[in-house]
């Protein structure tokens, strides 16, 4: 017979992984709900996922590519910009949704028990569907432009996993703090805007002077975006040093986020 002991918060190191596993079907249903609901009552539905970065890329291409003549690693600027925007949008949307996830699910949290970890995880997983769609569109666009991927494309999932891990780690901490301090939710759009400019999305990282690269690389998305472009377009060398830094940052963020989340979890239902 199942036995549960309900106590004041136990050690905040102990994650209840078994519980998370037990509720995996709920995780699936929450992801399914998010995906299902996202483009309800729109005319062109999921096409928005492609349209948004595509239009943005064309705008960037006109402004930065044509007028400012910024370097684009010898690629058509639209493709270059898309190659940055696709992983960046996935990352930025993940953080945005992840941060708001607990507060957005206040109704569930205050009425039903389940491991709270499921909520931010589900909100980020739901973004994978968008990513798959827009990635397909990007590859089609590349083929139209006559750019064929190399074998490097096989490492693409690893780059995405890295982006996923960084977004999840950051979101876990941020969404937990956001339950108590809603300020986080308001600050995030601004932070993400700044972060975008600190990441080689619309410009090439070759613009950064060589002796500042190490500092630049502390932004974990530098490695991810660089790695993503390399995997997709196969040009130049993979940014190994930056990727290693990203990996370390991801691990630190995941552990830190998890600890913070776990520490605050017991108060979610009271405070949210």
């Amino acid at each position, binding site marked *: 017979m199942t036995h*549960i002991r*309900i106590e*004041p918060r136990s050690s905040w190191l102990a994650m209840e992984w078994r519980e998370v596993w037990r509720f995996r079907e709920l995780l699936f249903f929450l992801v399914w*709900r998010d995906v*299902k609901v996202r483009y309800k009552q729109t005319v062109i539905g999921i096409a928005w996922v492609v349209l948004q970065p595509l239009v943005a890329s064309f705008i960037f291409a006109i402004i930065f590519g044509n007028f400012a003549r910024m370097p684009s690693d010898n690629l058509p600027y639209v493709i270059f910009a898309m190659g940055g925007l696709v992983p960046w949008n996935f990352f930025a949307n993940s953080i945005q949704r992840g941060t708001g996830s607990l507060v957005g699910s206040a109704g569930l949290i205050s*009425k039903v028990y389940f491991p709270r970890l499921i909520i931010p995880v589900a909100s980020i997983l739901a973004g994978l569907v968008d990513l798959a769609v827009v990635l397909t569109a990007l590859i089609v666009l590349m083929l139209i432009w006559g750019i064929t991927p190399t074998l490097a494309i096989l490492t693409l999932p690893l780059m995405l996993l890295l982006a996923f891990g960084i977004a999840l780690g950051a979101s876990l901490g941020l969404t937990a703090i956001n339950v108590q301090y809603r300020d986080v939710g308001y600050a995030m759009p601004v932070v993400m805007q700044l972060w975008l400019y600190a990441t080689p999305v619309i410009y090439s990282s070759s613009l950064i002077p060589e002796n500042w690269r190490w500092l630049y690389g502390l932004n974990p998305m530098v490695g991810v975006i660089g790695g993503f472009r390399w995997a997709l377009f196969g040009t130049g060398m993979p940014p190994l040093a930056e990727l290693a830094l990203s990996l370390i940052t991801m691990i630190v963020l995941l552990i830190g986020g998890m600890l913070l989340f776990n520490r605050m979890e017991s108060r979610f*239902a*009271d405070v949210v």
Partner: protein
Amino acid sequence: MSDIAVQANRVSKEYRINRFQRKKTHERSLRDDVVGLLTSPFRQRDESSDSIWALKDISFEVKAGEVVGIIGRNGAGKSTLLKILSRITRPTEGAIDIYGRVGSLLEVGTGFHAELSGRENIYLNGAILGMGKREIDRKFDEIVAFSEVEKFIDTPVKRYSSGMYMRLAFAVAAHLDPEILIVDEVLAVGDVQFQKKCLGKMSEVAHGGRTVLFVSHNMNAIEQLCGSAILLEEGKLTDYSADVHHIITRYLSSGVNDESRAEWINMGGEYENPYFKPLRLFVSDKDGNVINHAVSRSDEVWIQIEGEIQKMDSTLSVGYAIYGESGAQLYLSTHTDGPESGWAKIHEGRCVLRSQLPLHLLNEGTHRIECVVDLHNVRWVLLPGEHNPTVQMDVQGGLSESPYWTRARMGVMAPILEWVAANVN
């Protein structure tokens, strides 16, 4: 020890109120905390004034298969206890051991999404309540049949009427089948017919050998379904026994609803007039004591009106009008309603008129009683419906001795009338 389902050991729950600005905790912002830290960095948290103990030292034991009602006023800690039992929040002190799979229903339709169809919401809500996909697949047809929304099962629930929405939500909840069920007041949904169905389902669950912890304000449901009851008062467990009737009586008589409600007293110059100046209006028991708790339909209850007459007028009628839950006037009664020979004799000076409420006439619910004074065919001194002295009275329980009459009836009144039969050949 395997026959114990739930064992609570000195459970307490503390809620903190913001220490700096006395806002509720969830409204505080980072700025508040930073400002607070800067303005009073050395202030210690004053535990006593900044926290509320929603529950204090609650211990009890529920055996497997028992159906336990939890009763108490609003704010007594019922919801907090259910939240702890359902693992939504943790206790501050103490521990609870639960033996068996728990299902909890603190709300019907948790997680329903307006944009999704009935079918999709059944799966979503089922998963949220802890059912697996296969389990839902298996029960799907049954759930749909129970909800009576077959025709609209593929329509988004935002197009549903509120009744359909609630029926669907309850249908999913009703098919949850854990070993221990925790239920909060979910019976009050839908129309009367559907309520009956819900209550039927509840008693099926209750009599099906499952352990149930059940919070409700519906004393009839508690009395009918529960084998024992827990009484919570101000966060403390004050009574727990298998004598459910005893606990309900204690609950109904313990709480002072609101001192001003059962008794009205003229604070001075109100309603000045020479004919009948009302001084006091109150609901009393047979000994003349003010009753400021709910009364049962089978209790002897008196309405008492005290007033001052300076100038005796032969056309004076004094009485009361009574209004039901919906605000409809149920009846008006004055001391001159019967044959003249039987009228109560009143004289100049102070006097008290009293009249007994008919037994088994009023329906359950809150009633408003208003003092009425009339000079017959001359003028109203206190016209019904104007701002007259008013008291309130809750009627609860004592419905009938009939085994068939266990819940509040439809209708503004609920009299028990005599029935006779004659054989017709």
